[in-house]
Each structure stands twice: as C-alpha cells, then as structure tokens.
C-alpha cells in the first residue's frame, strides 16, 4: 500500500508537467494580455511593462523561467496585483479556501449520507419523497442561485447572518451551506440508490436470517457496503467543491484563492492563473489518491500493490 501511494504521488509530477504546459500554452495563445485596457496604455508603456516582467521573451523561455521559479518555490509576480507576489496571494487565501472546502465536504457527508439512508429505508414513504425533493432541488439549482437565495432569505429578510466576509463563524454558515447543497444532493441520491441496491443483496438476507437487529443490519451490513459506490463519487465531488468555491467565494466575498481564479483569467494575470491551476491540480490529484485509499479501506476486496 505504501509503495502504491508513493508511486501515485510520483505520478503527480508528470501530470503537473502536462497540465502546466497546456495551461501555459492556452493562456498565452488567448488573445489579449495583462495590459489590455478599455483605455489603452501607450505602446511604450506596454513595451516597458513587458520588459519589466519578461513577457517579451519567447513563450518557451517564459515557461522555463516559470518552472525555474516554481522549483525554488517562487510562483512569480501578479500582473494585476502589481506590488504582490503570487506567493503572497496564495499564502493569504489558501487557508480560507481549504477551510471552506472541508466544512462543505463534512457537511455534505454528514447530511447527505443519512438523508440517503433514511430515504432508502423509508422507500416510497414520505421521508423518501422529501429526500428526493431535496436532492432534485440541490442538483438542479446552480450554486450561485442557491447562494443568492440563501443570502436574500437569511441576510436580507431575516437578518440572521451577515452577507459577506469571513471574519466570524457566522460568516461561514451560508457559504458552507451553499457550497454543500449540490454535494449533499449528490451524495444523498447515490446513497439512496446504493442502499436500495444493497437491500436486495443476498448478504443482507443472510443478516436477516441471523436474527440481527434492524439497526445493526442497517449500520453494520448495509451502510458500509452501500458507501462503496458513494466513495467513487467523492472524487468528482471534491473537484466540484474546488470549482464551486470559485463561485461561492465570489458571491460571499470570501478572501480565499478561488475568487482569484476566475478573475485572473479575465485579466490575463498569468502568474496567478498558473499558480491556481497548479494548486487545484495538486489538490485534485491528492484528493483522488485519498479517495482511492479510502476505497481500499472500505472495501477489503480492493488491494493496491
């Protein structure tokens, strides 16, 4: 298992290389540049800016310089936040983004799995219909719509919670819920389907034939097996939490790094685009690895070597 993990981690390196080359190429082939303005800068100024930031080098040289910086832990300058390095920007915001992601992930697991289990156990009953309704709403509602709705209801109408910022736990509630809605729905849906599947399994019949308590059949025999397919969607869900955080951070003005990702693309802030892409690529790769390890833990039939 350890060997497997080490190999997977080593595999991240070529993946990052490919991702970085593609991103770098795409980014520089997109028309416009960091100095594009509605009110144009004089050409001499643009030339001076390009010279200052090395943007007048050929693209491959720029790439190599960037890689060189990366290897020394230097993510380069931001072309929008002129006085700040990408390192500063990332250091400022990454903790917040990770916190938001973890909170939303925990919430979606804590709500999603029981919701799915209850729906399956009360198959075609009222809890099932309620849970299905929640799932459908959660899946169909884009997170920015959900975010604005939550904002209007809980902040504008009820005035219970603040509309923006990240200073206090009260600030955390709405963004976490908004971000978790889709994963909750997704996990609940998968859990429900998986539980219904498991209900028909022979080993559950065996468990019943052993005269076990209903509760322990559900907990010991059904949920763990039902979670196996659910674990497979955790990878995509974690990826969603990352991309979803872009929108949620935008709507709730959360000082994370996700907010920079979208704006940096519009502003051709190359350094930030590259850094965000790398960070999120690493995050997705690592989380997929964690999911795979978890998968082996939960399903003893799977062994990595």
């Amino acid at each position, binding site marked *: 298992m350890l060997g497997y993990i080490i190999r997977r981690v080593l595999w991240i390196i070529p993946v990052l290389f490919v991702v970085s080359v593609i991103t770098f190429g795409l980014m520089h082939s997109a*028309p416009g540049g960091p100095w594009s*303005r*509605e009110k144009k800068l*004089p050409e*001499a100024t643009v030339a001076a800016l390009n*010279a200052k930031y090395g943007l007048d080098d050929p693209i491959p040289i720029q790439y190599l310089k960037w890689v060189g910086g990366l290897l020394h832990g230097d993510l380069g300058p931001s072309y929008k936040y002129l*006085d700040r390095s990408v390192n500063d920007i990332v250091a*400022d915001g990454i903790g917040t983004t990770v916190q938001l992601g973890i909170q939303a992930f925990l919430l979606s697991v804590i709500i999603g799995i029981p919701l799915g289990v209850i729906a399956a156990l009360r198959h075609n009953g009222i809890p099932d219909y309620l849970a299905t309704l929640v799932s459908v709403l959660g899946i169909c509602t884009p997170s920015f719509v959900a975010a604005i709705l939550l904002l209007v209801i809980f902040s504008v109408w009820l005035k219970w919670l*603040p509309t923006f*910022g990240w200073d206090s736990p009260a600030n955390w509630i709405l963004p976490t819920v908004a971000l978790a809605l889709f994963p909750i729905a997704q996990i609940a849906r998968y859990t429900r389907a998986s539980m219904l599947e498991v209900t028909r399994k022979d080993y559950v019949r065996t468990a019943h034939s052993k005269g076990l308590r209903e509760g322990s059949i559900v907990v010991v025999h059904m949920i763990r097996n039902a979670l196996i397919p659910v674990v497979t969607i955790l990878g995509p869900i974690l990826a969603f939490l990352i991309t979803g955080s872009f929108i949620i951070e935008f709507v709730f003005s959360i000082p994370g790094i996700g907010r920079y990702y979208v704006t940096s693309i519009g502003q051709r802030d190359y350094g930030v685009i590259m850094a965000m892409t790398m960070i999120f690529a690493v995050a997705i790769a690592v989380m997929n690895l964690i999911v795979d390890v978890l998968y082996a833990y939960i399903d003893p039939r799977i062994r990595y070597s």
Partner: protein
Amino acid sequence: MWLKKSFAILVVLGLILAACGGTQGSNSPSANASGSGAASGPQILHVDMGGEPPSLDPTQATDSASITVLRSITATLVYFDKQLNVVPWLAKSWDVAPDGQKITFHLQDNIKYSNGDPIVAGDFVFSWKRLVDPRNAAGYGYIMADVKGGSDLLAADPKKDAAKIDGLLTKFGVSAPDDKTFVVELAKPAAYFVYIASLYGTVPLQKKWVSQKGFTEAKNYVGSGPMKLTQWQHNAKIVIEPNPNWNPAISAAEGGAPKIQQVQYSMITDPAASLAAYEANELDIGAPPSQEVSRIQNDPKLSKQVIQGATLNITYFGFDLKNPTGLFTKSVTARKAFSEAINKKQMMAVAFSGIGVVADSLVPPGMPGHQDTAFIPYDLAKAKTDFEAGLKEANLTKADLKLQIGYNTGANWENKVAFMAEQWRTAFGVEVKPVGLEWGAYLDRLSKDPFDIFRLGWGADYPHPNNFLTDLISCKSTNNNMGYCNKQVDDLLAQAATKPKLEDQLPLYNQAQEMVMKDAPIIPIRFGQRFALVKPWVQNLVPTSQDSQITGENFFAWVSIAPH
C-alpha cells in the same frame, strides 16, 4: 456597472462642473453637524469597493478600486472643493511663468506624512521621476509627457536604453530648489497642466518608505492624506482612519479635521451580493446592478435612498474605417444612416433601465465644451434614403453586406446590441450579426481587426474637452480604434491647445466636435449616469461626477453618521 467594467478612470478635477448635481443631504441644513455633537453614533462608514485593489502604490495604481482608497489616504498638490473649483491642497499657491512653460508650487507649512515625517518638495521630485521612469513601467506614466524630457523617458526602452535612462532622469523638468518649493518645467505651453497636479499619481512619496516596499501592508503604509490606512486584509477589507498628522487648516473648507472615525471598505465582487449587503444594512452606500433598477424604483423604501447624477463618460459604437472595402469606410452617408436608424431614447428606456442620458455628441454634459445639439437625430425616413444613397456611394448592393457588430460578453451588452441590430433590420432589411467576445479577446480584436461596428466606452481622465476629442478621436490617438482621421480636426485641436484660456479654447473644440459629428465615425449612445443608494443616516456626503468607484469617495473624510 460601466465604471466597474472600465478599467480605469483617471481623475483630475478642477473645472466647475455644472451638472455635478445630485449632491443629496449634504446641501440640507443638517450639514453643519460639526461642533454641535449631533453625530453621536459610531462614526463608521461601510462601503463596498468591489474587490481587492490591484495596488495602493500611487505610481502603479490605474484602476477605480485603488483610486477610491488613494483619494483619502494620499494628498496631491492641488485638490478641488465641494463646488469643484481647483483649490490649494499640499501646495498653498502656485505661479505660472509668463511663457506658460514653468509652474512653481509653494508647499503648505506644517504638512506631514502619516508617520509624522514632514513632506518636502524633494518628495515630489522623487515621486514624479518614479512615475516617468520607464523601468517602473507605470500605467499612467504618460501624464508626465508634457513635462520637459518626459516624452523622451516614456519612449525609452528599459532594456536597450538602460544606460541612457539615468541621464534622461537628471534632465527631467522637475526640481526642488528648497523644501517648500517644487518647480515643474514643461516642454510646451500647457495651461491645463495644473490639473495634472491633482492626479493621485503625483502625490509625494518618501524615498525611505518606497525602499521599504511598504505598499502592500497597512502597518508599513505611509500616506499623506487626511485619512490613513490602518487595516488591509487582502481580498477581504480595508479600513482607514483619520490621519493624526493631517493639518486641518488645509481642509478648512471641507470641514477641517476628518469627521468620520473609520471607513470600512469591503470587497464584494458580486454586484447582486453587494446590493444584498446594502439591504441588510451592512453597507451604507450601494451601487445596484442595472437589472435591479426597476425593482428599486418601485420599492417604497429603497426608492427614497436613490441618488442620481451625471458621470463623465460615454458609451458609443465605433465604425471600422480601416477596412478599405467596407461600406463604412467608403460611405459617410451609410454611417449616418446607421446612426439615424437608432432610436436612442427608446434604447435608453428598454435596454438601460432608463439610467443614462441620450448622447448625441462626444463631450458629455457637465464638461465644458458639451454641445446640447442632436447632430445626427433619430430619423427613420432619412435613414432609409441615406442607406440607399450610401450603398450607391460605396458601389455595393445589400447582398454584399456581411456586417458584424462586436461587443464584450458578460457585461449585459447582449440586449443592447440586439436592440440595435433589430432597428437596422427594420430600417434597412439588413442583418447585422452580433458577435460577443470575452473582454481580453475583444480588446485584442479591436486593436487588430475591428468589427464593422463595435462597442466601446470612454471616461474622463480630466474634465476638459481635450480629453474627449484629442485623446479619443485624433489621428494619432491609440484609442482611436475606428481609424478615423481628419487632418482639419487635428489642426483645430492643436490650435485649441495653444490657447491659454478656456473661453478661447472652447469655440475651437466645438468646431472640431461638429466636424467629427459630420464625419460620423461613431454612434454616440449614452452619457453615464450614477444610480446609487445611500442610507438616510449618511450625512455630508459629497457625490461628484468624478466619483469613480463609490459615490462621494473624494470627500469621505468629512462624512458623518447620524444615530440610527
């Protein structure tokens, strides 16, 4: 929204702005709160600056979010008062040499930075050279172009000409004969240059401070304005508080020492969320997105909090005159036809939620040189005949036309462009295909190969017709994406620039504008209008047509908050 989308509105104030009205409560008798102790609640103003400011380095900043803070935490040689006259600020007076090529600024006594150090004339020399130095590649370095030696420096290549730059800097026409005197030598007569000295890029900078790289953290930041930066949580909020070293005598007319105890700038990126924050009383000043306008106007409570007023900018559609075979290059009559076919009044109502002023010329109202004349009025019948005439002029048939209208996506231009395309379809039976591009790609396309018709905007750097004519429409202007070039217009503009007095300049600028409108290189659509929300407890707010990000931002230091 226009202001948010446009990257930079470089603000110079100085001229009297007739249309800067809409100054709300501040004109009411309750304004004299000072001394009476009426403002007893917490004196904290909550505003939204729309996002992390790219830079609070006055030399580097180019955008409205940065400006809105810099206006309070830095100070320039000259400023403007509530009536928008140029007034002494860090300079108590200035002399212009008889030949108009030299300005001598005399600094106030007892002026200090927020760290307590005195502000000396040499700090301006350092700051101005820093701005013009090509190695710094300052976005708005070009405002130094009129200073002696400035254009040489701006044209210098920081790599190839590296050896020359230091030499050029020593020849740059700024000097400090003593700590209280700052002298600017100009390359040519430019009477308006004193307004450049109100630009935030020209604020004094301490060499010591700059070398400490103190622009990114509040604890290091040394400012020169009435307020000082006390907190900067990146991407979250900025807090400014009164600068104890500010000499209240300088701002006696504004109310002396700052009244507000704290201004908290939040960085809400989503306009809808920003409005929600305003409605939840977390913000005192709101800038609603255009799609919310009608709801606000119909809301009994919110509609009372609306303040409106002119802003110095224009939305226009340009014609591509670079394509030698294009209809619009070949026929001025066709250009006029396309302009005449647009019912701007209706467009304002349906596509702009009624916020804005129909534009029939280039220079906006509130700026000297504005001409309240519909040069090319809406006239469907004339449009039709002009269109046919234009086709003949260009020797083209309707079938030859494959016209495109370009716009940038993600900024609600779709419905506006569709409105225009529909008007042309009805008038001429011609399809003009809307093409939307992402912002960066759009700008790139415009500078290389513009669409037949394309959307753009222009905002005032300084409230002078020169800024809307020479800088936008002259042959050499980099912002002239149309490729329009009329030597006669250029001659008139050059002539106007030599006249020292505004009243002598204006007839020439008017003549130039009339000539431009006759050539119809653009379809002016709309002059900007502010649509903001202000809580009733915000007192002494001074909105101006120069506000770039937040209504009243130029005078936040003297706002007070009534108990609520």
